[in-house]
């Protein structure tokens, strides 16, 4: 009981720190894609860790917290992927020092295949 409580408090503090760092990345990063990277990955691990910590502190709530954690693990990468795809197709170009844009070539290939068909 005691050990589970201490694990829960540790997970809670780790989750809080990751959530704050994700929001700091949202505010400080220069570009939409950098903001998406910082704000989605750090927030995913932070929210999962904090909610699991609550489940460890109060073991009667474990089932519903695990349901929320599984939902966040599925839904958060999906929404970040949809946002990045939408921003790229709407014409926002990423800031890059080395000009490597693999998705542009993929789109060219798709367009050529459509023309052939």
């Amino acid at each position: 009981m005691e050990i589970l409580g201490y694990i829960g408090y540790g997970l809670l503090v780790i989750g809080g720190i990751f959530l704050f760092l994700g929001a700091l990345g949202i505010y400080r990063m220069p570009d939409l894609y950098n903001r998406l990277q910082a704000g989605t990955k750090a927030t995913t691990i932070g929210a999962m860790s904090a909610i699991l910590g609550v489940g460890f502190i109060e073991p009667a709530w474990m089932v519903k917290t695990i349901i929320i954690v599984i939902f966040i693990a599925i839904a958060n990468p999906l929404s970040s992927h949809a946002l990045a795809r939408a921003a790229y197709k709407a014409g926002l170009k990423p800031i890059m020092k080395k000009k490597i844009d693999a998705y542009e070539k993929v789109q060219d290939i798709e367009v050529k295949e459509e023309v052939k068909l």
Partner: protein
Amino acid sequence: METVFIIVLSLMALGLLLGFLRFVKGPTAADRAVALDTMSVIATAALVLLGLMFKRYIYIDVALIYAVLGFIGVIVIARFIEKAL
């Protein structure tokens, strides 16, 4: 152990404040959608933690519904941006 709750909740509140500043400032609509996504996830974790602090089991259900609605909203906004920005 109240101090741990207060520290974590203040970190989450600072995160919500930074997300809201980006939501106000953001140059394009996609930036605002990213900030909204981050804020909804932070608010989900904060609701679960508040439910533990106040000993209210119903807050877990509220957090689950809030996570589902935030996800659906972000997907809809992304679809809308993809067509016309």
